[in-house]
């Protein structure tokens, strides 16, 4: 997107740096991370050194103090890592688990947990979803009960990305069951506390990320580990979701573009009935249809980024973009696997992986139905 929003020499140089990192450190090891079920944690240090982990955060904590346009560049390039799970693990750390801490956390918490997160010395996870409450966030049961200066936490979280890698969690817990939406708090829980453990879950896709179930049994953390105000957790988490959703839009469109390019060269090389697949009109129509969808998705993402950069409330547009981009990505993956034929169904094929990986997009980070539920309310239904 070479223009006034993303097109300064600094955007271009940062893009080059991320691209080089993706080409040298991530893509060659993409299948290794699948086997491992997570990214090599030491790469967070490299990313920290390069300045990739604190783009919008205060320079006082090691951040770069930039705006969302740089985050867009980061995820456009990370979307090409050929490993959706790895991209997700990184984005959970940069844009899903840390924004609340950066925005509402105390100086002491920021010094101890945000600065090392930006440096890549610590990795974070966001723990909201529970076995009995996903889309219905307000239905969570994990309870933090105050005991003097401590919270005592009991409960369980599920489908949590970076479960094994994380050094700390941004946990959403019920702190006052009587207080309605004012009864939740975000609590920073280091993963080395007694009473905490996790089990890894086996997924159909996104193999390069460690998704787990978390258990809290009488876990004690100081009340000073509360991120922001006690009782404001629900509202803070709703804000944090905005970054999460926009990242999903940017990286899904970028990885679909990558897949589109791969599919084009496949169609040029694959010969059947005496001519390349790409010479068949059906292929050409599918390719241009996908290109059109991707272009539209990209424009929508751009509009969201612009609103964020301009400091406007982007909630409605991001909600629409999340719905639209994730569906476009799934459609592109479906068409591309079809054009690859049998090879597309092999685990080693990019199209095959995209097919299972992209399925998550309409579920995680707020499902399609959750987006529509919100939009219907906004539009007065």
């Amino acid at each position, binding site marked *: 997107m070479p223009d006034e929003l993303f097109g300064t020499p600094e955007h271009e*140089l940062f893009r080059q*740096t991320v691209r080089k990192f993706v080409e040298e450190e991530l893509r060659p090891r993409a299948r290794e991370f699948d086997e491992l079920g997570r990214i090599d944690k030491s790469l967070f240090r490299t990313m920290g050194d390069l300045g990739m982990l604190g783009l919008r955060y205060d320079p006082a904590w090691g951040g*770069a103090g930039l705006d969302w346009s740089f985050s867009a560049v980061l995820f456009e390039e990370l979307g090409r890592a050929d490993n959706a799970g790895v991209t997700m693990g990184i984005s959970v750390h940069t844009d899903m688990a840390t924004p609340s801490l950066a925005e509402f956390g105390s100086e002491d918490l920021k010094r101890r947990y945000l600065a090392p997160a930006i440096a890549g010395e610590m990795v974070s996870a966001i723990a909201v979803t529970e076995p009995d409450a996903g889309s219905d966030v307000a239905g969570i049961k994990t309870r933090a009960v105050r005991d003097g200066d401590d919270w005592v936490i009991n409960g369980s979280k599920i489908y949590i990305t970076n479960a094994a890698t994380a050094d700390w969690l941004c946990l959403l817990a019920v702190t006052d069951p009587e207080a309605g939406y004012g009864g939740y708090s975000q609590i920073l829980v280091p993963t080395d506390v007694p009473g905490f453990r996790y089990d890894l879950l086996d997924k159909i896709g996104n193999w390069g990320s460690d998704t787990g179930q978390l258990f809290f049994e009488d876990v004690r953390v100081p009340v000073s580990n509360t991120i922001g105000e006690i009782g404001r957790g629900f509202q803070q988490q709703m804000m944090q979701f905005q970054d999460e959703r926009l990242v999903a839009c940017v990286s899904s469109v970028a990885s679909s573009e990558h897949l589109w390019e791969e599919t084009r060269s496949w169609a040029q090389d694959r010969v059947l009935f005496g001519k390349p697949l790409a010479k068949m009109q059906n292929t050409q129509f599918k390719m241009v249809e996908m290109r059109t969808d991707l272009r539209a998705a990209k424009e929508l993402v751009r509009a969201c980024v612009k609103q964020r950069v301009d400091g406007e409330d982007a909630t409605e547009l991001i909600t629409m973009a999340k719905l639209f981009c994730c569906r476009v990505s799934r459609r592109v993956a479906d068409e591309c696997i079809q054009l690859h034929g049998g090879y597309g169904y092999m685990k080693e094929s990019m199209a095959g992986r995209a097919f299972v990986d992209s399925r998550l997009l309409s579920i995680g980070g707020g499902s399609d139905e959750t987006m529509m539920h919100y939009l219907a309310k906004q539009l007065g239904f």
Partner: protein
Amino acid sequence: MKILVCLKQVPHQDARLDIDAAGTWIKEDNIKFEINSYDTYALEEALRIKDAGEAEVVVTSIGPDRVTQALRTALGMGADRAVHVKDAEIDGSDALGVAKVLAAVAKEESPDLVLMGLMSDDSNASAVGPMIAELMGVPNASSVMKVELADGKVTCERELEGGALEVVELQTPCVLAVQSGLNQVRYASLKGIMAAKKKPIDVKGAGDIGLSGQVGAGAAKTTIDKIYPPPKGEGAELIEGSTGEVVEKLVGKIKELGLL
């Protein structure tokens, strides 16, 4: 200590190369460019010397506006300032013309070390380094694998044929053309990229460095007559048969050609 690093911007290694209408170069309009890979090692070596002590690293490149990108990358990686020689008059220069321009920049900067890659990814001539040294009247070492500085002298390891190494000592100022792989090239960090915003890029024309009328196509002693992709199918021999037969024939062929 002052180090001048000469960078060439070349077509990106993934760029699709089409030959231009005249048949003497490639179409440059719609392709991406990058810093010549050999030159990135030269830059990294300069930055390591800078990191290890006091040194100013100046980067220079010849070419149109697009070259700014290469210079900015170098500044983002840690170079201190840049000299961009931009002048249509220089277009069409041969290696000697390029060397004259770079030697003129070096004369103005009077660095202790001039570093560059052994050759460029696009024209592979390996000529410019030694030519600059000759024009400056200073010593030169090429295919450099290791650089050590002490007391106004540079000790270099040079790569010879078959992987043998030669150790040479040069007085500064001198010109070193480095081999690829002598170090691991750093990334431009975001911090470096932001700091580079404030670093100056001086733009100069042929006249500014006293070379008006002495460089460019007119002054070139070498011209490119034609470039073309190697014709397909020539020189290849298909070995057929069962795996065992193929291996036997291949080994025979290797022995016949004296390759082992």
